[in-house]
């Protein structure tokens, strides 16, 4: 039933250095008409630049962010530290989902306990994940 709901988002942001994983998320998002626009980033710092620039511009902000944990340079958790300093409007608009191929290691588990993270998703991202997200956000 929920798959028939036409509750799509305007903008979704995908941050993943792994091109194949990113391709998979983009494929699922576009075939499911989950979002009109996909903002696509290979690294967290470039994505943060975009978010910082548009933090008070509601129409430019993504409603959903998928960010991978293991990335060269800035990791997904490093991203969350900076993210917390962004505007209230932004944090209220964007729902962040953190992704990884494996469960989070024991030593990193506490980092998931972050008020800005809606949920952890284990890759590959599927249609079911998107349905869950729609139900969570709407």
């Amino acid at each position, binding site marked *: 039933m929920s798959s028939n709901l036409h509750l799509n988002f305007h903008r979704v942001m995908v941050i993943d250095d792994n*091109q194949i994983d990113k391709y998979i998320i983009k494929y699922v998002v576009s075939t499911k008409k989950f979002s009109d626009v996909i903002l696509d980033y290979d690294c967290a710092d470039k994505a943060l630049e975009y978010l910082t620039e548009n933090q008070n511009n509601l129409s430019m902000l993504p409603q959903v962010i998928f960010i991978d944990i*293991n990335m*060269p340079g800035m990791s997904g958790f490093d991203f969350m530290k900076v993210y917390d300093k962004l505007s209230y409007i932004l944090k209220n608009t964007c729902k962040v989902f953190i992704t990884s191929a*494996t469960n989070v290691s024991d030593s990193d588990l506490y980092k998931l306990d972050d008020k800005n993270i809606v949920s952890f998703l284990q890759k590959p991202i599927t249609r079911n994940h998107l349905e869950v997200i729609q139900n969570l956000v709407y």
Partner: protein
Amino acid sequence: MNLQSNQIKNEIENLTSLNKSLKDFVYRVSHDLQSPLNAIKGLVSFIELEGESENTSEYLGMIKICLDRLDESIKNNLQYSKNNFLDLDLTEISLRKTFKDATDVFFSRIRSSGIKLQIDIDQKAPFFSDKFRLNSLLVNLIDNAIKYQKKDEVNKSIIIKGVSDDEKFRFIISDNGIGISPMYHDRIFEMFFRLSGLAEGYGVGLYIVKETIETLQGLIEVKSDGMNGTTIVVELKNFKR
């Protein structure tokens, strides 16, 4: 009495640290294996969904990349676990032959990318170390020297020079590739560390190198300004009889 309790304390510390490295190892292996496997699952589900379509060969191409990664990470992990959990196996080593064997593995890649390879090993005394570990170390370092060449460089080169004596064996591997920015020199030996934009590897190669060098009681140093190639300096102990 005191001596004995100190020994016990040391032993507990050793075991705790071994336990920690086993945990890290298991986490890393599962991440390395699961990451390409999950991607394959995702891609296969597209093929199931679409049936045969104009995209099928693209999906298959990506599946093949994932399989190569799986293959590579299994080899890496095997190397790593051998280094960590097997005792040192000390034998007399012909250094010139070891370097020849290690570079022969890359013969076709070196030729097809037009790299000029120069090896100059001066062995002044019998050298004793662990042959398997020395080889794994060399293969990792030479692999990097080949992988991170500048694409448009006409005179690609790798120079290997080494001198051994009674005490130690010191060698350098010098390339004129893309280099490593000094700000990363402290971090490149960390597990999973990769330089942005070069997401080819898993970020475990130099981690394995560092661990191997520690086992061989050696030192490693990286020299690079981040533009004009990289020189790796390695010094290994001669475990002479």
